[in-house]
């Protein structure tokens, strides 16, 4: 096909090999491109799902290829997406750079595509690492443009050896930045370095061997071969050890074995426990039961796992799977298996019917011994004898946990525990739970933080999470007011983090949040009920960030008389010289109000505050405070702080006890105080009215629904009547 569609908007030129082009064009037609070049989103989605990648990866792919930006899949985006899918399936990070190199064809299960080898790719752990790296896809590699056609085939086995030397790649520095947790830095950066260096060397190697003739001989196995070669050449997101072991093993094996065997090892990955996971589980076990050799009783384990907010039947099922000796207690291995199952379930994996082989205690026992020895070894050749196939599976999954630590930076919502735990305690927990996951972060942010905390794996619930996150935002923002004691919570959070030093931050956070008891519910009410205007100030300023849509329009009627009163007072005090001070104050407060003033002035010019409208603009700010709240919700929030400022300033003035009447004779200050008090009363009234409004609105909608149903019934009955009538006439 043409090279044009292969162009990536990110500024690179992605060329497609002929095989790829053929496949992609097939897929393209499969996805029913319409005349404008856009692909049917449904078909594309189907194709992506058939690739058996987790939804998170698919989202990343979609984003990367630009479809999200454009809103549809054009040819270019489609091709890029296909390449990214192929990259993801072969274990590459879903990044633009990764598809610059040669890719095997993406594999789609269930799609009628003869060109693809329908296999069972389930490189879930790759996606996590991809998600991690997706957070910042910088063009760190100034890669020479390669002869793509040659790349795929000519990555002969001989080229791979030189890639293993650990060259200090200058390209590592940008990839290093996202790594947050200290544990991850080294292996990750190293892996990156290895990746780029290896690919570079490979590409150098391929240019040396541009012979396409060799390729033709491998045509039949090209799909499998590139997979291996890719695995070998680009041990991208994996820990360095894994890459090496990978390459060495695959190198040794690729000649004899088919790719299926190599890829088959990945298939169990969701159920394999990585080193980091194992350590995490072990630490959790220790927290529950200090002696590693003894058992965790059933009730203890139950309490612990219940915190994961999975449903009881699921937990029950997990228990049954993991408690193989059926003694009602969990050994460390059983506990690890159970924990792993829970984690997997949280990520969207459905529970298996029986314990996966990699989670069985015998297997785990075996694995528990060997990886530790692996860890200390050096890279290049030392592993080749050590590495059984399962080990290299451990390491790839290692990246999953590296990703976890990285993902807090990315905006990709990927949380595990927090997803569910946010739904449940959302109403009660609020800020604490929100802030907890980000224990590593010092600054409590609101939503971006929550998104950041959504690290961990690549759950299929990513879309689900997006929905829930939309729901959460209004909830979050009502509790956003509870950021009042953010320092205090931070402190709590930090203290909690200090208690546990896990490498995987997100899981830590998740667990911590999971274990956090529900925060006292009255907190939001406290802040709201507090009459202190300063608190309200803070609240509104904070809540105004994201909470625009949550406020109901305040009832128009109640504030008006009050406003009228206030304005009456204000207008009456216009003549007083003190009014000027108010004016000044008002101006000072409402200097940013000018636009709202104009808007509000337009709205209320004809209001019943006519007499005040005629007054000078000094009264307009005051007037605008209240009525402006009605017409413009966003401005209201500014109005409120302003009114609060006004109140606060008023309250700071020495105020004799105000009387609610006799405006003119009183000095300006009691009027101000009274107005401030009235404003406060207004605000509380507004709040109550808003709640009442919400209730009434709901009632209204229900009644309307009933009305519609009644209408439908009526229509049905009438038609029946019509039908019966002629009959009766006969």
């Amino acid at each position, binding site marked *: 096909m043409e090279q044009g569609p292969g162009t990536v908007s990110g500024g690179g030129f992605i060329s497609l090999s002929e095989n790829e082009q053929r496949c992609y064009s097939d897929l393209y037609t499969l996805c029913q491109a319409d005349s404008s070049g856009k692909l049917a989103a449904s078909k594309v989605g189907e194709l992506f799902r058939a690739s058996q990648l987790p939804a998170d990866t698919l989202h990343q792919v979609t984003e990367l290829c630009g479809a999200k930006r454009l809103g549809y899949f054009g040819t270019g985006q489609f091709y890029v997406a296909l390449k990214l899918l192929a990259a993801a399936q072969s274990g590459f990070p879903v990044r633009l750079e990764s598809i610059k190199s040669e890719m095997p064809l993406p594999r789609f299960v269930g799609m009628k595509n003869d060109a693809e080898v329908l296999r069972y790719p389930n490189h879930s752990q790759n996606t996590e690492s991809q998600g991690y790296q997706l957070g910042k896809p910088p063009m760190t590699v100034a890669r020479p443009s390669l002869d793509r056609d040659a790349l795929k085939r000519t990555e002969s086995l001989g080229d791979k050896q030189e890639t293993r030397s650990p060259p200090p790649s200058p390209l590592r520095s940008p990839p290093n930045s996202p790594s947050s947790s200290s544990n991850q830095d080294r292996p990750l950066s190293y892996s990156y370095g290895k990746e780029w260096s290896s690919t570079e060397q490979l590409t150098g190697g391929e240019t040396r061997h541009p012979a396409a003739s060799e390729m033709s001989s491998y045509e039949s196995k090209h799909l499998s071969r590139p997979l291996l070669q890719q695995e070998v050449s680009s041990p991208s997101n994996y820990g360095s050890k894994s890459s090496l072991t990978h390459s060495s093993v695959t190198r040794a094996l690729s000649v004899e074995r088919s790719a299926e065997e190599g890829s088959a090892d990945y298939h169990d990955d969701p159920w394999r426990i990585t080193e980091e996971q194992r350590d995490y589980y072990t630490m959790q076990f220790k927290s529950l039961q200090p002696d590693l050799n003894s058992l965790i009783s059933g009730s203890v384990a139950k309490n612990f796992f219940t915190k994961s907010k999975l449903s009881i039947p699921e937990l029950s*099922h997990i*228990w049954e799977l993991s408690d193989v000796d*059926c003694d*009602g207690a969990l050994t460390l291995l059983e506990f690890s298996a159970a924990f792993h199952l829970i984690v997997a379930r949280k990520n969207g994996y459905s529970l298996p019917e029986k314990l996966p082989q990699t989670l069985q205690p015998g297997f785990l026992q075996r694995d528990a011994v060997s990886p530790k020895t692996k860890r200390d070894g050096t890279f290049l050749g030392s592993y080749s004898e050590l590495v059984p196939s399962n080990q290299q599976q451990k390491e790839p999954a290692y990246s999953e946990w590296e990703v976890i630590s990285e993902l807090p930076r990315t905006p990709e919502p990927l949380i595990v525990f927090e997803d569910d735990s946010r739904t449940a305690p959302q109403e009660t927990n609020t800020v604490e739970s929100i802030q907890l996951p980000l224990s590593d972060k010092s600054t409590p942010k609101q939503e971006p933080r929550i998104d950041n905390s959504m690290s961990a794996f690549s759950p299929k619930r990513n879309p689900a999470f997006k929905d829930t996150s939309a729901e959460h935002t209004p909830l979050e923002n009502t509790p956003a007011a509870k950021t009042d004691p953010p320092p205090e919570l931070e402190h709590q959070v930090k203290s909690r983090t200090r208690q546990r030093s896990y490498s995987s931050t997100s899981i830590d956070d998740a667990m911590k949040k999971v274990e956090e008891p529900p925060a006292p519910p009255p907190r939001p009410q406290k802040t709201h009920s507090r009459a202190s205007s300063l608190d309200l100030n803070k609240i509104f300023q904070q809540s105004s960030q994201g909470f625009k849509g949550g406020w109901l329009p305040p009832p128009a009627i109640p504030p008006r008389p009050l406003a009228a009163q206030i304005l009456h007072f204000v207008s009456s005090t216009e003549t007083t010289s003190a009014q000027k001070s108010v004016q000044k104050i008002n101006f000072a407060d409402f200097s940013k109000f000018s636009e709202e003033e104009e808007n509000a002035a337009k709205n209320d010019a004809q209001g019943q505050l006519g007499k005040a409208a005629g007054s000078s603009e000094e009264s307009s700010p005051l007037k605008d405070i209240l009525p402006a709240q009605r017409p413009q919700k966003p401005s209201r929030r500014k109005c409120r702080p302003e009114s609060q400022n006004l109140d606060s300033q008023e309250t700071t003035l020495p105020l004799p006890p105000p009387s609610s009447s006799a405006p003119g004779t009183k000095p300006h200050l009691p009027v101000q105080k009274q107005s401030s008090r009235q404003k406060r009363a207004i605000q509380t009234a507004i709040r109550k009215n808003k709640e009442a409004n919400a209730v009434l609105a709901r009632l209204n909608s229900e009644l309307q629904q009933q009305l519609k149903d009644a209408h439908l019934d009526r229509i049905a009955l009438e038609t029946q009547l019509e039908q019966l009538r002629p009959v009766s006439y006969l």
Partner: protein
Amino acid sequence: NYPLYIRSIPTENELKFHYTVHTSLDVVEEKISAVGKALVDQRELYLGLLYPTEDYKVYGYVTNSKVKFVIVVDSSNTALRDNEIRSMFRKLHNSYTDVMCNPFYNPGDPIQSKAFDNMVSAMMVQVC
């Protein structure tokens, strides 16, 4: 006295089986109260012909915790010997204890364990 678990194979006229099981509970209770000693004995509630029209055998089994297992088999399947029934009850009991071991299982809840289901299905398939 409510059922924790009911499965019937192959004929799905479950209601009849439910009814039978329920009525047989009375007989089991009677036997429990009668035998003052070792209640853990596997009891057989061999009814033979319960009604002239329906011929099926109901076997009962009670555990230490008064959990009753009732098996209803078609009398036409006379190949079932006592030992087989006992072994079935033993398997049921074991599976039940496994279910009980699960800390997430609250006694009195309907049994939702898949392992339990699988075991029961396997047993029934073997019988029928």
